[in-house]
């Protein structure tokens, strides 16, 4: 239960008086409160440092060591105090958690020591308050990474693959971590070499070489040694294609691989070559073909597989896209404004370069970025004035956003990380709350199933029902009161979905069948459960006699849910103590109106002889498959 809820339970129970005039059934008796209601001060001695606190404070969190009966193990009779042989400095924080409901992480402490203390006192670290959560997580991650690094260094390389991994997995691993095997490393360097060769060839191709004997004009080397370059290109493309296909084959998820940036770059790098091969060699399309060759320069991006820094740069650019977009937008606005002004200012001049506004764009850009090529120069006075304004404002417009962008980079980067952490933390918290709620519900349902709601007038109460904390007793009593007020019971999702299903199918049943069906041998501890089971089986016979197999197909083995993380129930080890409660429930067509629970099982059995067989088999703890098999009567 969450913080402080224990304080409010008496209030909620008192408010239950409001249900009394409305109740359809009589209210159950409240649990007997054995311990005295007065509060007392407890002494806790942690390695010599004495702490004192109210008992109620510690009882707020019954799932922890100090809140549960586990602390009795540490009780020292001679000194009348609880003695813990642990770090007293850390205990201060633990105790503050009980007092304030918030767990804080002391920044000067070692994260691992803190974790160990929390584990000892049974406190889940996720409860750390928002103020300290980020720090805690960062330190923890740092620590884990450091440990992981140490481990890696200790092992001397990556861990060996599991022995029965397929060749595909091994291949993928070789591609992703080239350091794993020598073959992978060789391949890595070979591809790197060929990327470099390809890029250099592309560059050198265009350098003018000495002309062939007999001609005057300088030829680019590409045309002079066209065959050589072609062969080199072919070799590179073959290697790249081979690499791409191997990666595609080895990828665990082909779709994901094909969508990834690196594979797109690979494809773009090799496509022009193939397109060039396919396309015919005529003049019309060769222009387009030449354009395609430009894409060969993308091969340089293949280096990002080899370089971590390039990848980080790409990622940061991507994450600051909006800032860059804004810069671009404001620049565009300024360019348009100044280009227009310059055009109209220079319109009158004869032989001017400012032939149109788009032509003036070039001038504006060159001036604003303080390049000043000088190919376009204003002649009129107005033009010169506006030109100087343009260049001055250019400095501002360009220089100002840059630091903003840089700081945005770091801010957005950190914020992203924090947002992700927050989201993850929120998910965890929601999941924990859901789990806690489910746990409460399940605890109550299990309590009911264990016959806890029967009148405890004798020692025949199963041991599974005892060993619940007082808080749980009272809370379950409150839930039971609500059940009695509304004359409906709490169930779980499985039962509910079945009931829905069967109600939609329709039903015909007789109350006599439901009353008379109890199997022999059910313990008096769980007559209620037996009753429910019997009702369902009786109805299953009804549905069998109608010949519809549908209901029986919905037969599931309804395993009683284990009460999760609750420390008190863990202490009690209810599974071991549940002697006769260890049954598994059959849930078939549930139809009839609940009849008042009978305490004594009836003797008469439903006519089908197979049913007791089912029950006996089920009692011995079978698996769901058996149950379904047997059900096809």
């Amino acid at each position, binding site marked *: 239960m*969450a913080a*402080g*809820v224990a*304080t*409010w*339970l*008496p*209030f*909620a*129970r*008192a*408010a*239950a*008086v*409001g*249900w*009394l*005039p*409305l*109740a*359809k059934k*009589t*209210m159950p*008796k*409240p649990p007997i*409160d054995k311990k005295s*209601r*007065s*509060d007392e001060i407890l002494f806790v001695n942690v390695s010599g440092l004495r702490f004192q606190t*109210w008992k*109620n404070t510690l009882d707020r969190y019954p799932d922890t060591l100090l809140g549960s009966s586990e602390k009795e193990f540490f009780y020292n009779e001679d000194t009348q105090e609880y003695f813990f042989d642990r770090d007293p400095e850390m205990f201060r924080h633990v105790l503050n958690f009980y*007092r*304030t*409901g918030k767990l804080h992480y002391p920044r000067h402490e070692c994260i691992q020591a803190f974790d160990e203390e929390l584990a000892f006192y049974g406190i889940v670290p996720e409860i750390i308050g928002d103020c300290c959560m980020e720090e805690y997580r960062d330190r923890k991650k740092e620590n884990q990474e450091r440990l992981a690094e140490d481990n890696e260094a200790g092992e001397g390389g990556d861990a060996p693959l599991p022995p029965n991994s397929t060749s595909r997995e091994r291949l993928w691993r070789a591609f992703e971590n080239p350091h794993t095997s020598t073959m992978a490393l060789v391949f890595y360097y070979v591809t790197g070499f060929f990327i470099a060769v390809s890029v250099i060839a592309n560059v050198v191709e265009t350098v003018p070489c000495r002309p062939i004997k007999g001609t005057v004009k300088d030829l680019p080397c590409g045309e002079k040694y066209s065959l050589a370059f072609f062969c080199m290109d072919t070799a590179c493309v073959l290697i790249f294609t081979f690499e791409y296909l191997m990666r595609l084959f080895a990828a665990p998820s082909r779709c994901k691989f094909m969508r990834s940036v690196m594979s797109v770059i690979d494809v773009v790098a090799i496509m022009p070559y193939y397109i060039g091969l396919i396309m015919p060699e005529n003049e019309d399309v060769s222009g387009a073909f030449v354009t395609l060759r430009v894409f060969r320069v993308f091969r340089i991006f293949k280096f990002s597989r080899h370089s971590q820094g390039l990848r980080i740069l790409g990622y940061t650019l991507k994450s600051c896209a909006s800032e860059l977009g804004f810069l671009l937008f404001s620049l565009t606005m300024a360019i348009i404004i100044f280009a227009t002004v310059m055009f109209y200012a220079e319109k009158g001049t004869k032989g001017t370069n400012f032939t149109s506004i788009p032509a003036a764009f070039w001038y504006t850009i060159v001036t604003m970025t303080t390049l000043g090529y000088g190919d376009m120069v204003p002649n009129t006075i107005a033009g010169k004035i506006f030109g100087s304004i343009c260049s001055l404002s250019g400095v501002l417009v360009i220089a100002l956003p840059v630091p903003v962008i840089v700081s945005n980079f770091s801010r957005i980067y950190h914020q992203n990380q924090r947002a992700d952490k927050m989201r993850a933390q929120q998910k965890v918290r929601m999941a924990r709350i859901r789990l*806690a*709620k*489910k746990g*409460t*519900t399940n605890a109550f349902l299990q309590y009911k199933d264990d016959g806890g709601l029967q009148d405890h007038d004798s020692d025949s109460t199963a041991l599974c029902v005892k060993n619940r904390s007082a808080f749980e007793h*009272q*809370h379950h009593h409150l*839930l039971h009161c*609500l*059940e009695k*007020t*509304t004359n*409906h*019971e*709490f*169930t*779980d*999702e499985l*039962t*509910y979905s079945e*009931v*829905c299903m069967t*109600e939609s199918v329709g039903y015909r049943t007789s109350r006599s069948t439901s009353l008379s069906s109890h199997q022999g041998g059910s313990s008096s501890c769980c007559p209620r459960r037996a009753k429910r089971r019997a009702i369902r089986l009786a109805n299953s016979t009804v549905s069998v006699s109608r010949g519809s197999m549908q209901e029986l197909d919905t037969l599931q083995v309804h395993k009683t849910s284990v009460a999760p993380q609750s420390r008190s129930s863990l202490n009690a080890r209810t599974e071991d103590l549940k002697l006769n409660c260890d049954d598994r429930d059959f849930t078939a067509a*549930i139809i009839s*109106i*609940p009849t008042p629970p009978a305490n004594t099982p009836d003797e008469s059995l439903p006519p089908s002889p197979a049913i007791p067989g089912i029950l006996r088999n089920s009692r011995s703890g079978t698996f769901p498959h058996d149950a379904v098999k047997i059900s096809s009567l």
Partner: protein
Amino acid sequence: MSDNCLSAHLPGQGLMGVFLRQRVCVTDSVEDELEFALARHRPEGLEQLEAQTRFSRKELQILYRGFKNECPSGVVNEDTFKDIYSQFFPQGDASMYAHFLFNAFDSDHNGCVSFEDFVLGLSVLLRGSVQEKLNWAFNLYDINKDGYITKEEMLDIMRAIYDMMGKWTYPLLKEETPRQHVDIFFQKMDKNRDGVVTIDEFIDCCQNDENIMKSMQLFENVI
């Protein structure tokens, strides 16, 4: 939030009464937070509370320590109520019922429950006479506090209670179940068949009902 405060005023006083009434904790979230930051409520002295309620000194001390720990500002607001109840009844939606309960506890209708309100309510519920408890229950059902429980009010309360059960119940909760329950209730309580239940009819009828009388003693040892 404003709906709460408005609906809780007595009809006879009209609009002026609404404006004249003390507003400590009113509307939206930002203002809420600011006002709660400022609203530090200190309860009256221990002796006074001892005189007004039926709790002993020690019990009041324990109650206050718990209360102060949960609500350091000294007042509880409706959201806390809803939170608490949603934890106690995880399967259903307890917010409507928490809302009605909050109004029942908030005796001066200022949108917050101070420690006095809290402890006075508890005193009635746990240590009060049967008459007082029935009075309190009547006050809970009478949403607009006009002295009459109409069928609509009862239906709202009933729906709120059934909402707390949630979806996964056995037998299935049907649409008309709350209405049927209300009809049964009115059949029992409304003696003169005028469509409303007055406080006298209510108390009379409950006192004649054995089951209700027996269960009144149920929660006496909660504190």
